[in-house]
């Protein structure tokens, strides 16, 4: 090595080795020909190109030291300033009729800049020679650079990621855009990854040291948003194709064209009367600043026609805001993720095809956005039992119970760690968590995918409460719903999955949440304090009520009662006293949960599961 900072040795795991691998992998055409190495420097890959690819190496650079070194090793090198406008004719001249099979420009673009037109020259050469090109550039978004930049540091060095001579910096997106503007398109990729780059200094920086909470939080957010945090150099193989539009990002915010809210309505096409009620509720909204995506999930053709008819029936202003999106794969969460990708709204909310909303549902979210833009927007839902009826041969829905209020009026992150008190239609997600933070509904979860995303996103963007009651969660007493479709064991498994996920993450608690944690630990929750900070206690109370209700449902069910003689017999033989509802009232939350587990695991419950399946009620 010469001591020149650009005179680096060839290695299979550095940019040179990755380049050779790509050149071998993407051979568009075989046979004799030239490998053209632009900004060749010391011609490090020259010998390997000739020996392993069987191509004649031709290097071009302006640096005399590099030219001398390469020529001394017998490589064909030409001196030229690649920023000059005659570059294409210069290359044609040195090729002298020889065919170019492949091209490389390794860590050169950041010195030359894309404004020089060099990428256009490369694209033209690729096109006319049916060749491909390997491009490498340093990744300015490496986590060492971005973590320090976030805290106000930007350190130029003699070489490396922030080489003081760089005139242009690249992220993955900007490189794709700039190559695309020249008509070059990525077909292969072998990036060089380094957990600790040349910017990993000072080594005591809390944002860089991987033992700190700050570092793990930044890495978690970054890895969720974008996967190039450890990429030191992008190394891509590209071919020529049509040129894309300008690579410059339009800084004009596209928000103006967006509706405030995208409403995602999942349907399986089996609840047309309910879906029509949803549309009726939307037609009565006091704010029309929304669009609706009806996500038809695995809907049969005949049912899709009914869904489309229900959409078509709406008044024009509403009809024009509704799009039908067909989703024919995946589980419960899949249509939501598909919908997120098509959503145009600044916010996204899920309103399933069997719930209702009040007239100020959209308006309340909109008002909350003005108070805290970018946060999750939460309102309050009430719950009401409903059933299906057919009156005069027409199917309809009938409420059969008073509206109940099981959900806490304000959001507590701490309480939500224990149970979900936020039905999906009562929380709107900012599009940034999908677009910019890379979050999605977890499609591996068969239930509780909503709770999971609420927690993950609330931990980053916070929650703004409206406290207004704006929605009705319908509790289907005799029809199938996600509650009855999924066995309670499955629910518990998903709960555990959420717990595991959260236990592995650094959590950013919102302002004021420390008090809720303190109160829980000291047992002061519920013994005074203001309403907001008692929400943890409230949710705990709601959780207890939910557990008690579940026990009551089991004890009062026909299938449990029918087994009473068998249980009485077992008690005679030492099976313990019968469980009474009055005993449960004094139980702790854990004892209630444990009781439910025992009841559900009992012989009485298991042997009568067929009855519940047949009736679809418990």
């Amino acid at each position, binding site marked *: 090595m010469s001591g020149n900072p650009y005179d680096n040795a060839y290695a299979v795991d550095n940019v040179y080795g990755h380049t050779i691998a790509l050149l071998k992998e993407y051979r568009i055409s075989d046979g004799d020909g030239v490998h053209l190495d632009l900004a060749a420097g010391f011609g490090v890959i020259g010998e390997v190109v000739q020996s392993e690819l069987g191509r004649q190496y031709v290097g071009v650079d302006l640096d005399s030291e590099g030219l001398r070194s390469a020529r001394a090793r017998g490589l064909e090198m030409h001196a030229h300033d690649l920023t000059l406008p005659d570059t294409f004719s210069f290359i044609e001249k040195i090729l002298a009729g020889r065919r170019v099979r492949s091209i490389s420009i390794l860590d050169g673009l950041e010195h030359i800049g894309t404004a020089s037109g060099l990428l256009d020259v490369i694209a033209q050469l690729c096109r006319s020679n049916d060749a491909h090109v390997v491009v490498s550039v340093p990744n300015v978004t490496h986590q060492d650079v971005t973590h320090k930049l976030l805290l106000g540091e930007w350190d130029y060095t003699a070489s490396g990621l922030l080489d003081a001579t760089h005139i242009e910096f690249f992220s993955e997106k900007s490189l794709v855009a700039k190559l695309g503007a020249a008509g070059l398109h990525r077909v292969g990729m072998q990036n060089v990854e380094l957990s600790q780059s040349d910017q990993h200094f000072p080594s005591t920086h809390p944002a860089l040291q991987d033992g700190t909470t700050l570092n793990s939080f930044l890495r978690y957010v970054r890895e969720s948003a974008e996967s190039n945090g450890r990429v030191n150099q992008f190394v891509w193989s590209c071919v020529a194709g049509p040129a894309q539009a300008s690579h410059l990002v339009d800084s004009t915010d596209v928000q103006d064209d967006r509706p405030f809210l995208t409403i995602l309505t999942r349907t399986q096409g089996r609840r047309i*009367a309910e879906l*029509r*009620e949803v*549309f*009726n*509720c939307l*037609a*009565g909204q*006091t704010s029309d600043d929304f669009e609706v995506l009806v996500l038809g999930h695995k809907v049969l053709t005949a049912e899709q026609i009914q869904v489309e008819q229900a959409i078509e*029936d*709406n*008044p*024009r*202003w509403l009809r024009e805001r509704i799009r039908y999106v067909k989703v024919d794969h995946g589980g419960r969460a899949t249509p939501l993720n598909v919908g997120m990708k098509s959503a145009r709204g600044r916010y996204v909310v899920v309103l399933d095809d069997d719930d*209702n*909303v*009040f*007239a*100020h549902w959209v308006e309340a979210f909109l008002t909350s956005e003005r108070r805290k833009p970018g946060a999750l927007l939460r309102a*309050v839902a*009430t719950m009401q039992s409903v059933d299906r*009826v*057919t*009156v*005069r041969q*027409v*199917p*309809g*829905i*009938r*409420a*059969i*119970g*008073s*509206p109940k*209020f099981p959900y806490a*009026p304000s959001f507590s992150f701490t309480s939500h760690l224990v149970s979900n008190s936020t039905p999906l239609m009562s929380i709107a997600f900012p599009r940034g968590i999908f677009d910019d933070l890379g979050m999605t509904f977890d499609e591996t979860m068969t239930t509780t995918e909503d709770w999971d995303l609420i927690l993950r996103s609330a931990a980053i963007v916070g929650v703004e409460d409206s*406290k*207004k*009651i704006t929605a*009705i969660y319908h509790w289907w007493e005799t029809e199938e719903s996600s509650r009855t479709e999924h066995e309670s064991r499955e629910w518990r498994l998903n709960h555990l999955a959420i717990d595991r996920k959260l236990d592995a993450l650094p959590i950013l608690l919102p302002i004021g949440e420390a008090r809720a944690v303190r109160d829980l630990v000291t047992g002061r929750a519920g013994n005074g304090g203001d309403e907001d900070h008692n929400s943890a206690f409230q949710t705990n109370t709601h959780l207890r009520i939910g557990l008690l209700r579940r026990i009551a449902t089991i004890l009062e069910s026909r299938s449990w009662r029918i087994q009473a003689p068998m249980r009485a017999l077992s008690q005679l033989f030492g099976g313990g006293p019968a469980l009474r509802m009055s005993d449960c009232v004094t139980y702790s939350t854990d004892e209630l949960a444990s009781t439910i587990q025992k009841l559900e695991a009992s012989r009485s419950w298991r042997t009568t599961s067929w009855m519940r399946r047949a009736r679809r009620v418990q």
Partner: protein
Amino acid sequence: MPEYAEQSVTVQCVLYNNDVGAIERALESLNRCAELAVPEGAVWPMQVAYGDASPRPLLDTDVLEAWAERFPSLRIRYEWFGRNTGSALGHNLIAEHLDTDLVLIMNPDVVLAPRALGFLIRSLDDPLVGMAEAKQLPIEHPKDYDPVTGETMWATTACALIPRDLFVELGGFDSDTFFMYCDDVDFSWRVRLAGRLVVFQPAATVFHDKRLGDDGQWQPTSAEQYYSAEAGLLLAHKWSRDDLVEKIAGYFRSSKDETLLRAVAEYERRRLAGLLAPQVDSDHVVGVFTPTNEYAKHRYLL
């Protein structure tokens, strides 16, 4: 697709200082409803008749002309009463010009589901049915109904369809007795007294902007409290429940609540002036007064 006999429809709404935007939103849906109800037998275009009881006219010619252009399936008629008629008299005044087969009594701000009118018209195919009520969203009225026939004790006139002949035969609403509450209960009971059925059709939905307070309770205005209290007394009297009148009036008097005291005082004034309605249903065949002061059994508390 079954063939339906053509029936013309008038939608009647009494206005009182309503939000014009909300009326417009309701018209949008009504226009679509009218388009879709044609195959169900509704005559095109459908008439919409507004009677305005506001202190000043809510609508002007410009608005009406714009609506006429925008809602081609509706023929809109508007009259400013120049006085606060209340809902019962307001509807009767509008109905003086009624010349269609069916009349849809409706709050001006309810938003009909596209197929709601069709479902209501089909309910009236049964000649026994004299009044068909739509289901309100998002909070449904809790009164009980037969889950197969839809038969119920009474219908709210937030949105209810009535054959014109029956409406005329019954003399419309009892506007001498009721101002703005219980006029629909009384009318429904007279429909039943005439041997016809009142039915509830849950598939015919209308969205009615009713909200719950942050505490989850309905929050009636003091006017709503007063008129419903007054109407409760008047309804009990008219439907021959003097025992209830005595009980309710006693409760009102002992409550020391200003609104309730005013209601009982107005009742007394009418009684002494001989202005109470003649009593009907002396055998209590039709009128229903539940222990919780409802006019039908309720499925749940609201």
